[in-house]
């Protein structure tokens, strides 16, 4: 009886801490002054390393992933956590598909290194028209067979949009489903479906556990700038860079085609998770990666519309602007105030505060070079500078510049402890 009372008290405490933490972050996003500077990080594979496990172990063993993540959550106590399953417990799913766009431990990467993307033109320049006519048909018959070895059989299918009715398409378009290659691909998809469902189940289990411990989850959905999706997964970095000169209209049309898809992806997840914060990693719009004019023409319009649409639906877009985006600050300021959180990697934070301070919450910027190669004193000095300047008057969330993967534990500890002590308003 006594033990149970104790547990109930803990639960009430956790519920109160959960409310406090959520308020702290929401205050920062809404540009109100919180009780102290919130701190959140992208742990990446840091938890595995911290527990002395290989990356392969946590990519394949859900219990190990669960335990290592929970351990760093309880030890470091970020204001919000990440449910790690969707982008970490990938081994069995990737194998079921024979996925080609990643190399991961045991599949082209050693057991202790993070998985990595394999650049490529997974859509050729002359396939824009197919993509624009019907992205789903393009995905199933052209793209999936290229990025998933076990879905190669779908190459044999007839156009999916041709299957209309008994005398329009039924005989010729349905017939390929009888082919053994297609049956194999369908079976692989079913197997992959079961693995994906496992990921989702573990993710719910973890989110529940974090909640019981008093920790909200940072973001409940994932989406991308349409230009990034087009470049990352379809045309490749080099292919899309050249397309901006060789077929600019097609690039813009493809981004517009992707916009409602990127929006739907985010909205469906936020509705399912009940979490309004949407993570948007920004890859290809950075300074240097295109001119300001190209940014305004190709990158920003559909990203802006995506974020505005999300805000209208009550969501908080949380882009992570990788690299240096200092020259973009004036342009990306053009969204409703107090709704979004912009994390920056190497952007000039003073300029960001000056230009964006009354519009969006800022986050991040503690360099991984310091977190890996520096000392706890270096980390504290850097965090102090951020809190004194960018943190002034609220609207800032402490975080590393990008994922923690290889950071030194004592440096991570210094970042957390210092922020909790010094970051009080």
């Amino acid at each position, binding site marked *: 009886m006594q033990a149970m009372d104790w547990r109930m008290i803990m639960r009430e405490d956790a519920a109160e801490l959960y409310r406090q933490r959520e308020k702290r972050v929401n205050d920062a996003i809404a540009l109100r002054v919180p009780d102290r500077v919130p701190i959140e990080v992208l742990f990446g594979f840091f938890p595995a390393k911290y527990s002395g496990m290989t990356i392969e172990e946590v990519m394949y063993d859900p219990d190990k992933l669960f335990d290592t993540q929970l351990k760093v959550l309880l030890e470091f106590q970020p204001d919000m956590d990440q449910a790690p399953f969707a982008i970490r417990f990938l081994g069995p799913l990737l194998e079921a598909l024979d996925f080609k766009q990643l190399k991961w431990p045991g599949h082209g*990467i050693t057991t202790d290194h993070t998985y*990595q993307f394999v650049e490529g033109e997974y859509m050729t320049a002359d396939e824009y028209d197919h993509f624009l006519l019907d992205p789903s048909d393009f995905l199933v018959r052209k793209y999936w067979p290229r990025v998933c070895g076990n879905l190669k059989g779908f190459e044999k299918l007839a156009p999916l949009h041709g299957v209309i009715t008994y005398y329009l398409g039924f005989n010729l378009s349905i017939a390929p489903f009888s082919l053994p290659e297609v049956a194999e691909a369908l079976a692989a998809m079913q197997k992959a479906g079961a693995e994906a469902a496992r990921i989702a189940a573990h993710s719910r289990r973890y989110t529940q556990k974090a909640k019981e411990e008093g920790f909200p989850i940072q973001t409940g959905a994932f989406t991308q700038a349409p230009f990034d999706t087009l470049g990352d997964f379809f045309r490749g970095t080099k292919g899309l860079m*050249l397309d901006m*000169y060789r077929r600019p209209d097609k690039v813009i049309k493809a981004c517009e085609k992707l916009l409602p898809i990127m929006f739907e992806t985010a909205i469906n997840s936020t509705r399912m998770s009940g979490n309004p914060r949407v993570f948007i990693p920004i890859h290809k719009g950075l300074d240097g*990666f295109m001119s300001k004019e190209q940014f305004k023409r190709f990158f920003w319009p559909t990203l802006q519309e995506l974020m505005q649409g999300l805000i209208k639906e009550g969501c908080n877009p949380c882009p992570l602007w990788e*690299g240096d985006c200092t020259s973009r600050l004036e342009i990306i300021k053009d969204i409703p105030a107090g709704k979004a959180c912009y994390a920056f990697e190497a952007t000039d934070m003073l300029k960001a505060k000056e230009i964006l301070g009354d519009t969006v919450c800022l986050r991040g910027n503690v360099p991984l070079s310091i977190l*890996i190669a520096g000392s706890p004193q270096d980390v504290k000095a850097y965090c102090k500078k951020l809190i004194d300047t960018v943190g002034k008057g609220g609207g800032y969330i402490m975080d590393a*510049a990008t994922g923690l*993967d290889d950071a030194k534990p004592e440096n991570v500890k210094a970042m957390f402890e210092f922020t909790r002590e010094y970051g009080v308003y």
Partner: protein
Amino acid sequence: MDSKLVYLMADLKEIETIALVNELIKEGVNPNEILGSARAAMELVGKRFEKDEYFIPDLVLAGEIMKGISEIVKPLVKKGEADTKKGKVLIGTVAGDIHDIGKDIVTFMLDVSGFDVLDLGIDVPASTFVQKTREFQPHVVGLSGFLTLAFDSMKKTVQALEEAGLRDRVKVMIGGGQIDDEVRRYVHADAYGKDAIAAVNLCRQWIGG
């Protein structure tokens, strides 16, 4: 030097540049002269990049134009007429990292700037850097890496060069996503470059040319 060709190419007019090259070849212009003009154009492209007038996509497009010109012109260049190179650079993405976009741009810019570049590719073990440094005898070793795991791989590569007694014979430059001066100290490299033109400038400074 054909100044029309230089400016068309430097302005990244891909179709017009290639058309002009075909015309010049028909007129019997010396292919080496065409290549000289193309290199002069790349020189201008590099300058515009340094002045923040051009960005990576412009370098990539310039590279494609250069490739297009070379495909037309190179088969016509007589053997033995090839330019002498300014110096040797060994380059590669370090062990564990499979990223190559940045490294490829650096390799291309060094090559077009007249250096003899040996590109070892991606995920290159320290021992391969050592072996190739012995064989190729470069003036400069360039280590590329996008992920943070590359810090340790770079450090190990520099250590391996030291242990093999080769460190004093080469300059080591590093570059990539997270690389800054903090990482340069950690790795014991001689310099880091923030982009491809910085890499070219470092090599010019160390080797000359």
